[in-house]
């Protein structure tokens, strides 16, 4: 009764589907080139994270659920919890990766610990070995799915020799596809817009296909969720799986916890997850939506796992059917070949998406962090000076093919003894080793390169010994006796019960030991000695990446030629691109193009070159290459600390300058405004007189008087602006003479007598008979007193003004007060009157004046070490006062820096 599809149809559909994916990628790349990116969208970003769901989810979860009920879930609950912290952790990773052009997880870790090539190589090696089982899982799933669909799998569903052949074919096909997707050209950001678009599309396809099968099984084959559950619970062997009983039932909490934690780390540490979440992210704000949309995607794709698993077990009761292919065999058995084909395409989607992204990510790492360092060391290539972009692309393509073949070999070696999920978990456990070095490095400045190396190496070795070797041994390729009795008969070295630690499943056991060794050595070795300069500077850059000052720090010292840097970057990115990049950078910094610019490159330009290079060949290789064309001085820890301090000081001064600049702009706009008002009135009156030659002489005379008055006001304003500018810039000329303050006040009162009489004001001068002499500039002081007097005159009531001028002699200083009986100054305006162009009174009663008299007076008084103030109660008149020390130099030295400088500039 089971329908079977012809191999030609299945192959045709698969190739057509892959072709469609490729078309999507090509279209997205075209759109990106045209500046209309399709992936600049939070939903696409969230969907691209769905690459987490591979054939493991699609086929393996059902197998797991059929044997263990809810035990498929921790692998998705872990990512849920990880995404809760995405806004804090993932966003920081994205920011760091963008700042330093980090393009892989190996690069990230190596860069954090002083751009260590050794560390980059180790991480790459772990990632490469770690993901091989995972790739094998995909090949196995697709091959066995193909076998089920075409009826080649007799009853076991396992892949025999035919399956192995088709797996090899799948591997090579996917390799070619990945090469076409990811390594057509070299990009210094390692962004692949087309690939991301295709991955997002794949996420939709696999979700839709899986939901379609789930809905068909639930409502087509059975009478809904309750029906499946009810019938499964009736059978004791299924009920035990589906619904654990009370706590005594031996629920393995340690394994549950370990799986959740493992998945939580894997969701950001797997090379492909790092690729789509960090490297391919176009806008860190997208993290907000993806943080919940991605877990929601996981929830959706898992809703039907248990129904399909239980439905399959019920449907195939008594038959030997592999639960891992229920998603195909159930529709086939129910006579729905079209649905089965859709399900296969969905599974293919899940597998290809994983393989493509993983292969691209791993090939970038292997090329940048394993192959290139060796190539660059060999003199032939390093010295030739030619364009290396072709070599890099060739290396990457080779690595992709190699990874696929390794996956196929692992599938041949160990694939048949293990369930899909178990294979995948081996990979998870490998990449989880990155967690202490990576996450610790992002939040703890104390971690060192040696600590990271020791932790990673120990964790990885324990992973190999307690998890990878047993998996190979159990497949019969090695003598499995050492599992039972330990190597050389040493029982305490048994890989799955190290030091006699038993009572856990092998995965939890392996995770415990490797995590203990990894974290312990990372922290312990890091704390053994203080970080070196290179480590400390990178630690600061990573941990404090959100601080604004961190952008301006440049940890480099030495001599470099711009031409050398351009040529170096050109070798890896192409000469044309390099020139364009440097020209753009020069423009950004407001400098001339590199050809015309200074031959000597500054530290910031060296850093720029290194960052560009890091995007193409990894930060460790970039460091080596840059070091080869420049003369560097080694930094020590003190230098690092000093650079950090200088950078924040620089930023501080920069902000000060900006605010001074704003003040200057405000001043300019006030000045122009003040100039325009008298000019407008002069012009209006002059035009009036020109156009009406028959104007009454009296009227004309009146107009002319206004024109003269306004012109006087203009020249007064210009003089005062110049005066102000001179004083503020420190270029004013100051005389220093003995001044008799009493005599000076008398002169001031006399010279304003005419003005005061016009307004009907009386002035009284109250001064002691003997006044000591003062060292100051008499003309400037007169200017101050005249200004205060004319101010007072302006505000006194016409015809009834009373002004009192008082001179008080104190032991250390003289105080002058000018009191009027005007309306006074409201409290809220008392500070404003000393600001430029602010005058007392509202718009209607705005008095004649420039608004600069008081600011200038205050500057003059302060120049001689005194203060100018205003005391006023509304209705009680205003009292302006100032005091001056008898000997400004001795009493005020050091108190007013502005004054000191002016004296220095005055001969």
């Amino acid at each position, binding site marked *: 009764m089971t329908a079977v599809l012809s191999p030609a149809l299945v192959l045709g559909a698969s190739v057509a589907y892959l072709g469609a994916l490729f078309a999507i990628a090509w279209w997205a790349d075209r759109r990106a080139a045209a500046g209309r990116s399709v992936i600049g969208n939070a939903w696409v970003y969230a969907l691209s994270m769905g690459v987490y769901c591979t054939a493991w989810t699609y086929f393996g979860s059902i197998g797991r659920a059929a044997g263990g009920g*809810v035990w498929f879930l921790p692998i998705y609950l872990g990512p849920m*919890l990880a995404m809760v912290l995405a806004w804090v952790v993932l966003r920081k990773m994205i920011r760091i990766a963008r700042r330093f052009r980090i393009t892989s997880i190996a690069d990230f870790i190596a860069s954090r610990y002083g751009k260590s090539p050794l560390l980059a190589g180790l991480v790459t090696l772990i990632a490469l070995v770690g993901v091989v089982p995972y790739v094998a899982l995909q090949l196995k799933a697709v091959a066995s799915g193909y076998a089920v669909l075409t009826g080649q799998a007799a009853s076991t569903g396992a892949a025999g020799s035919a399956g192995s052949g088709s797996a090899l074919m799948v591997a090579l096909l996917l390799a070619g596809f990945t090469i076409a997707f990811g390594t057509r050209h070299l990009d210094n950001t390692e962004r692949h817009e087309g690939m991301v678009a295709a991955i997002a599309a794949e996420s939709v396809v696999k979700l839709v296909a899986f939901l379609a099968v789930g809905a068909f099984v639930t409502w087509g084959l059975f009478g809904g969720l309750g029906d499946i*559950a009810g019938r499964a619970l009736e059978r004791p062997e299924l009920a035990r799986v589906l619904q654990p*009983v009370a706590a005594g039932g031996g*629920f393995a909490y340690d394994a549950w916890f370990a799986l959740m934690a493992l998945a939580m780390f894997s969701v950001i540490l797997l090379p492909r997850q790092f690729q789509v979440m960090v490297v391919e992210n176009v806008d860190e*704000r997208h993290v907000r939506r993806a943080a919940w949309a991605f877990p929601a995607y996981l929830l959706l794709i898992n809703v039907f796992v*248990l129904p399909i698993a239980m439905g399959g077990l019920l449907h195939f009761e008594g038959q030997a059917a592999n639960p891992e292919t229920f998603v195909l065999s159930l529709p086939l058995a129910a006579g729905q070949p079209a649905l089965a084909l859709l399900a296969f395409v969905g599974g293919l989607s899940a597998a290809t998406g994983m393989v493509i992204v993983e292969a691209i990510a791993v090939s970038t790492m292997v090329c940048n962090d394993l192959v290139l360092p060796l190539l660059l060391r060999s003199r032939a290539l390093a010295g030739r000076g030619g364009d290396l972009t072709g070599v890099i692309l060739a290396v990457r393509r080779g690595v992709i093919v190699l990874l696929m073949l390794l996956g196929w070999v692992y599938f041949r070696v160990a694939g048949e003894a293990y369930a899909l999920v178990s294979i995948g978990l081996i990979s998870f456990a490998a990449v989880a080793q990155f967690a202490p070095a990576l996450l610790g490095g992002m939040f703890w400045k104390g971690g060192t390169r040696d600590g990271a190396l020791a932790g990673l190496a120990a964790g990885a070795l324990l992973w190999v010994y307690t998890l990878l070797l047993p998996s190979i041994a159990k497949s019969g390729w090695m003598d499995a006796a050492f599992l039972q009795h330990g190597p050389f008969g040493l029982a305490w070295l048994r890989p799955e019960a190290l030091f006699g630690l038993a009572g856990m499943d092998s995965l939890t056991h392996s995770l415990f030991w490797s995590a203990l060794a990894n974290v312990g050595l990372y922290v312990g070795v890091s704390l053994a000695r203080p970080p070196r300069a290179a480590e400390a500077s990178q630690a600061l850059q990573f941990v404090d990446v959100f601080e604004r000052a961190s952008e301006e720090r440049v940890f480099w010292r030495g001599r470099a030629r711009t031409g050398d840097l351009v040529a170096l970057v050109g070798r890896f990115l192409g000469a044309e691109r390099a020139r364009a990049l440097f020209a753009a950078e020069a423009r950004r910094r407001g400098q001339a193009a590199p050809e015309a610019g200074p031959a000597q490159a500054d530290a910031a330009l060296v850093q720029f070159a290194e960052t560009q290079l890091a995007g193409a060949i990894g930060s460790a290789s970039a460091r080596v290459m840059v070091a080869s064309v420049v003369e560097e001085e080694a930094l020590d820890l003190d230098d690092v600390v000093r650079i950090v301090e200088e950078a924040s000081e620089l930023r501080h001064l920069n902000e000060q300058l900006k605010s001074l600049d704003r003040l200057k702009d405000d001043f300019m706009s006030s000045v122009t405004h003040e100039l325009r008002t008298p000019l407008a009135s002069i012009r209006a009156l002059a035009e009036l007189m020109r156009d009406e030659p028959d104007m009454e002489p009296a009227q004309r005379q009146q107009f002319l008087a206004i024109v003269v008055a306004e012109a006087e006001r203009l020249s007064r304003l210009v003089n005062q602006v110049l005066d102000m500018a001179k004083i503020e810039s420190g270029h004013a000329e100051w005389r220093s003479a003995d001044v008799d303050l009493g005599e000076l006040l008398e002169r001031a009162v006399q010279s304003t007598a005419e003005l005061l009489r016009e307004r009907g004001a009386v002035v009284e001068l109250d001064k002691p008979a003997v006044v000591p002499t003062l060292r100051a500039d008499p003309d400037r002081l007169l200017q101050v007193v005249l200004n205060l007097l004319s101010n007072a005159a302006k505000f006194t009531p016409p015809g009834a003004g009373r002004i009192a001028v008082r001179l008080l002699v104190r032991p250390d200083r003289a105080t002058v007060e000018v009191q009027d009986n005007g309306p006074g100054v409201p409290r809220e305006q008392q500070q404003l009157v000393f600001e430029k162009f602010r005058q007392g009174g509202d718009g209607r009663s705005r008095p004649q004046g420039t608004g600069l008299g008081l600011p200038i007076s205050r500057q003059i008084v302060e120049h001689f070490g005194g203060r100018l103030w205003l005391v006023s109660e509304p209705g009680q008149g205003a009292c302006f006062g100032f005091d001056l020390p008898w000997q400004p130099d001795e009493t005020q030295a050091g108190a007013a820096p502005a004054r000191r400088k002016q004296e220095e*500039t005055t001969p």
Partner: protein
Amino acid sequence: MRARTPGSTGLLAQRLAALFVGGWVLFDFPLLTLGFGRGADATLFGLPRLPLLLFVGWLALIVLLAVLMESGPEGRGRGGPPADGGPEGARDAVRGEGHVG
């Protein structure tokens, strides 16, 4: 002295941390035992109790996270300007040492 780093010190980050801890508590011993049971206790609304409770808890976590992530302006942790140093002192320094030499 140090600029406030959005996302690491703000209220949002603290809420997310609380939700993270809550999630771990929700999906682990002993709350997980609420899903155990046989006979009449094996199901809830006709569905197996443990899977149902896990999925419902999961959904609740997603909804809470979505509310936190989608509410509030972009980068709400970005409080006021950094409170480093007094501007007065620095301005005096600029003026005092500006044109010398």
